[in-house]
């Protein structure tokens, strides 16, 4: 079984608002030193792939990213977590819309051993569009199951758990499919072992130029970014402080009663 996991390197979503600014002309974030991390749902997708391989024994995992050179860091991380191969489409994600990225990723996947399963985070932690995984499915003419949190049965046909608003569905795949992954308590990404980190540094990374795989000719951007702005400032909370915890709690309870909240 061949599993492809799509990984994106993003601006660390945990940087505080204070440190965040925008460049209104270029319409990109303006952050000093701009720490980059693996997008968090992609981490969940990777963990799901690793667990699936453990459960089956016969799976190989290819980590695939689209990014500029520094995005190799997420591939190194994937290799350190013992992914079997790593591929980067050398393109700047900030210059492409979701569909264009999906087109390139799908073309890169076609150069690999045909996957039985493609996993992607449900949405990236930067622009949060939530489009690429599903669009890759369309580009590859594969079905797509969104919001998958775990594999329920690892033998064929694969059965997965899909999270829904209230509860979940158990879904049986009918063949090669794309699943977009959401977090739950079972798919928190593990830490790499020191020896695997060392070994990962020596493993090959394959870089594909967009031109090698047909590029995006004929596919213009479908969405235009008109403006990127900081949100309006919010007014602060009314603070309750009556000295001790006991007294503050009483004051809070009274205030809630006044407001009709209880």
């Amino acid at each position, binding site marked *: 079984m061949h599993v492809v996991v799509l990984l994106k390197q993003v601006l660390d979503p945990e940087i505080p*608002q204070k440190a965040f600014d925008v460049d209104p002309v270029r319409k990109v974030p303006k952050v000093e030193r701009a720490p980059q991390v693996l997008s968090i749902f992609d981490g969940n997708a990777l963990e799901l792939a690793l667990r699936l391989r453990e459960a089956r024994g016969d799976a190989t995992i290819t980590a695939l990213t689209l990014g500029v050179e520094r995005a190799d860091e997420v591939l190194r991380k994937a290799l350190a977590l013992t992914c079997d191969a790593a591929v980067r489409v050398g393109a700047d994600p900030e210059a492409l819309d979701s569909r264009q990225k999906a087109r390139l990723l799908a073309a890169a996947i076609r150069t690999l051993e045909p996957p039985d399963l493609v996993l992607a985070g449900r949405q990236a932690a930067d622009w949060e569009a939530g489009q690429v995984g599903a669009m890759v499915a369309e580009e590859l003419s594969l079905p797509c199951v969104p919001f998958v949190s775990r594999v329920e049965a690892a033998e064929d046909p694969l059965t997965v758990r899909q999270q829904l608003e209230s509860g979940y*569905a158990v879904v049986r795949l009918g063949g090669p499919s794309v699943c977009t992954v959401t977090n739950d308590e079972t798919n928190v990404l593990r830490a790499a072992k020191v020896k695997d980190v060392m070994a990962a540094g020596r493993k090959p990374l394959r870089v594909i130029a967009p031109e090698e795989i047909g590029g995006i000719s004929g596919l213009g951007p479908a969405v235009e970014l008109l403006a990127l702005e900081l949100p309006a400032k919010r*007014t602060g*909370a009314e603070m309750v402080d009556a000295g001790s915890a006991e007294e503050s709690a009483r004051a809070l309870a009274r205030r809630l009663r006044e407001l009709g909240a209880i």
Partner: protein
Amino acid sequence: MARVLAVLGLQGQGASASGLELLGLGARLARATSGTITALALGEGAGAQGERLLAHGADDVLWCADEALARWPGEAGLRALERAQQEVRPDLLLFSADSLGRDLAPRIAARLDAGLITEATELEFSEGRFVAARPVFGGKAIARMAATTELTVVTVRAGAGSALEPDASRAAGGSVRELDAAIAPGAAWPTVLRREIEASDGPRLEEAKTVVSGGRGVGGPEGFQTLQELADALKGAVGASRAAVDEGWVPAAWQVGQTGKAVAPDLYIAVGISGASQHMVGCSRAKTLVAINTDPDALIFETARIGVVGDYRELVPALARALRELA
């Protein structure tokens, strides 16, 4: 003269509040262009919703209650959408940003070569096109976007629009038709084998009038017991931040936020939660939001209505006692 198609998913429960909001938003946009709006009702019981949807602003209603929609929601939903698109030829295709909309919108947009904007919190018709605003970078910035294609596809967050006052007299003017979707299941389609609703002892998180949510600051599963006691005293439910789920302290079903549950209780008490926007998206519709946090500079004090600085291990039990005194 835009043609708007608004997709409403039903699961045997009739149109939801967010579905009617979506319809209201679509109807206003259609009027702004002197155009029309068609509601597409998908799922069990869709056929019975026609008059209600007309009264809430639809000019026409198409419905599809094919059983295939329950077993293959994504793939069958796409087939139905493709049929509806061919009939209506919309300029604007609207979904709620829920599990159905987030599933179908990117796939139909790719199929129709249309520009898609997801998670819109505002949508207007301006200078001849539909312009959406949506939070990005966890709400640290707002992006304004428009499609460059003839068809614009948008998923809309709850609260971006509002339902129209129902007007039963409108029902006479519009048509209600069953969509002939002719869904023939494919062998490769992923099949829903069963659906499970999480068990809950008290009120369900998404319906509770009071929600007490805990974050990383709660420190462990035992701390959530303290929160449960407060929630019980308020006949409420317990929720959590993603951090608490990631720590393995509580099940993922408790997660509130952009990628968890969206709740709209009368009272939301956030305990040991820093206030990351991805969390706040899920509770921004609470009428009164209270934050309890040891850090006076916590971001959550910017959005909360009421804040108390302190250790929850003292404040939460004290609050439970104070509530009993008041009762």
